[in-house]
């Protein structure tokens, strides 16, 4: 069996890549992509733990399925908000969204 730490290391790296995307990209849709990368790396972690620590209870798999449902909802609402912003401001640069500042 592959050591558990391989999976954990991989998911940490993928999480880091996603985090870079969230912090560096200014395009709102690209940030949505990066959030998906992070969510999936966390899911990978959960399923790996489920297989190695509690194989008979499948609790990690349950949580992965819940995360997927939430991610789907998040994308639908997030994209609707981005489309609304684009329609009103003709831009999806998140740094320009500072109309609440004065």
């Amino acid at each position: 069996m592959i050591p558990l730490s391989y999976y954990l290391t991989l998911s940490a790296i993928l999480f880091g890549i996603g985090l870079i995307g969230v912090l560096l990209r200014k395009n709102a849709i690209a940030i949505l992509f990066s959030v998906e990368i992070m969510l999936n790396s966390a899911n990978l972690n959960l399923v790996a733990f489920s297989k190695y620590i509690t194989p008979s209870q499948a609790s990690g798999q349950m949580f992965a399925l819940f995360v997927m449902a939430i991610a789907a909802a998040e994308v639908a609402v997030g994209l609707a908000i981005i489309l609304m912003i684009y329609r009103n401001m003709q831009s999806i640069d998140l740094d320009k969204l500072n109309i609440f500042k004065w």
Partner: protein
Amino acid sequence: MDVSISLVIFLALAAMAIISSLMVVVGRNLFNAAMFLGAYLLVIAGFYFLLSAELVGIMQVFVYVGGVVVVLLFGIMLTSQMINVRLVSALQQRVLTLVVVAALVGLLVSIFSKTSFYYISSAEAPRDSISLIGKLFMTDYVLPFEVISVLLLAALIGAVIIAREEGRQ
């Protein structure tokens, strides 16, 4: 499957996951980034199959590749003027981000390499994990299950209301 083959598969999948996620993050063209995101999500589904979580793997394909990626592609095409616009963060922010992320990942990896997981179970996964998951959804996890269904309904209605053009009844 013996260890060496599954290790080879793991390493190949890992390389593909890292490359495709990097392409998503650094790519300039959003449409290509979405393609690589689809590839990344498929690779993650491959990992689930490797971990013998077939249901999660197939739901990953169903929900993410068939649903999320397609919806994101819709979003890209509807904001198509932005597809090749280059938005670059300030140098200061870039350096800071890289340092913080490198520190975080380094910390996590060093913790994982030093921890020995005492609880690794030698029990085999149940042969029919699908019916087990189905039972758990209706017994132990029934409350989160119901909450999720309400959340999805709210997201559905909310997305329609937000995205609808104003002035149209």
